[in-house]
């Protein structure tokens, strides 16, 4: 289950939705707005998305995680709009039969979101607002193409 939008993130709801009778472990990661960015005071962050593409990217990440690990449920959500310190901007929740699988899939989920999701943040702090632009999407795409060629030219 994936979502990109202004609604508040609920960890309770995410955990309920990934729950699955065959799963013994649930791993959750929440990204929350910090009061500083490498020492610079931060009072709020505004997240802007390209929503249609972001939904497609989250759906692809969910599909890839499910291919690699035997997951019960998957929740990937990114919030948009202006968030205060302490509010959650992103959640990755997965359930799996055993804890190792749950941890690995959860970690991979957040790493891929960070590299691939078309979402941008504007940090508000002393001295005004700055756009943080960090991960070039052209780099995120390259490894997948390369891997595919190695595995076989037919697909």
């Amino acid at each position, binding site marked *: 289950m994936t979502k990109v939008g202004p609604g508040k993130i609920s960890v309770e709801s995410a955990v309920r939705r990934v729950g699955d009778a065959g799963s013994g472990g649930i791993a959750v990661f929440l990204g929350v707005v910090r009061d500083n960015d490498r020492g610079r005071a931060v009072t709020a962050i505004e997240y802007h998305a390209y929503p249609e593409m972001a939904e497609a990217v989250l759906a692809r990440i969910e599909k890839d995680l499910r291919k690699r690990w035997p997951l019960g449920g998957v929740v990937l959500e990114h919030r948009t709009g202006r968030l205060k310190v302490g509010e959650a901007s992103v959640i990755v929740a997965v359930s799996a039969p055993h804890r190792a699988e749950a941890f690995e899939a959860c970690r991979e989920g957040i790493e891929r979101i960070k590299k691939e999701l078309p979402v*941008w943040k504007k940090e508000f702090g002393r001295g005004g607002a700055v756009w943080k632009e960090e991960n*070039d999407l052209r780099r995120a*795409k390259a490894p997948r193409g390369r891997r595919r060629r190695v595995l076989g030219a037919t697909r």
Partner: protein
Amino acid sequence: MKLRVLFFASIADAAGARSLEVAVAGRETVADLRKRLESERPRLSGKLGKCAAAVNTQVVDGSKVLADGDEVAFLPPVSGGVA
């Protein structure tokens, strides 16, 4: 033929717009469009080269040929998720 062009984050600020309708006369690639937009809008000059481009939500490279009705997004480096 017509395209819809989308800008985000600092690029939207520089362009002064989040989206544009753009008419294209002949065959044009993403790289051609990038060049044309930069020359038409001096504040974008040098900036679109730092952006990835997506056509209809798929990241593409500059050689991609555009078709009528395409949605072309210029995507500066992303910063979603977490610290």
